[in-house]
């Protein structure tokens, strides 16, 4: 077992443990904070995969914006739900069963796939992934259209969110 493998297992334990806390803890503020821990673990996994830019984006966008938005939403809505009554609906055992079956199905499907135990390809010498990513996002031969569609989606979501949450009174 190499050093990298130990680091990976450590962060995998952090991610899965925090994710379990997110879906089971009673206090929604704590759930949002556990989500931040899980997202941080995912950022570390990106770093292990040599995707440094995505690790930074994960911290800035997910932890900096989305998780904080969740905390605001919890603070604006929590009075009704705070720590009273069950947090899981009455079909939770069915949900647990479906989750376990999904995991088993995915794992079974993947373990029959030939590339399952593949090891990482060598990163070609002189490859600057960030530069490649930047070029790919604006090059007409590559992904400029999905990039523009994503920006329009964000604009539409922005306007939609303001309209939906706007208090008419």
């Amino acid at each position, binding site marked *: 077992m190499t050093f990298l*493998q130990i680091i990976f297992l450590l962060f995998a334990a952090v991610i899965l443990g925090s994710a379990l806390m997110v879906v089971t803890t009673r206090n929604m503020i704590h759930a949002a904070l556990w989500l931040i821990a899980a997202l941080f673990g995912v950022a570390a996994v990106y770093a292990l995969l040599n995707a440094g830019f995505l690790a930074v984006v994960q911290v800035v966008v997910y932890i900096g914006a989305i998780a904080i938005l969740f905390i605001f939403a919890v603070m604006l809505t929590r009075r009704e739900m705070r720590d009273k009554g069950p947090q899981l609906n009455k079909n939770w055992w069915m949900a647990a069963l479906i989750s376990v079956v999904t995991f088993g199905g995915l794992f079974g499907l993947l373990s029959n796939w030939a590339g399952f135990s593949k090891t990482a390809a060598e990163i070609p010498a002189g490859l600057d992934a960030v530069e490649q990513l930047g070029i790919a996002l604006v090059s007409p031969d590559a992904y400029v259209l999905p990039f523009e569609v994503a920006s329009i989606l964000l604009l539409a979501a922005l306007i939609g969110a303001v309209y939906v949450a706007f208090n008419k009174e």
Partner: protein
Amino acid sequence: MIPLSWYLTLSAGLFSIGLFGVLARKNAVAILLGIELMLNAVNINLVAFWRYGDPAMIVGQVFAIIVFATAAAEVAVGLALIISIYRRRKTVVADEIDMMKW
């Protein structure tokens, strides 16, 4: 080196936990938290396949960026809906939000 199977197993586990959260939680905000976990599992898969496939093909990272943008849009609209419903109905329990139930 870390084999690809470890990343895929981690991602499958994270996806299943998020699925449980979406299906079992009563609080609508908690359902969105579960969706975030599932989107992150997808992103781990995309980046792992980029790294273990051909790193010169950047498509895995491009898709991950698009998923980031989609997740941000989804959270903004979802939370705006929840806050709007809370303002009118004074509830965030998904079972009680049944205006569209026929």
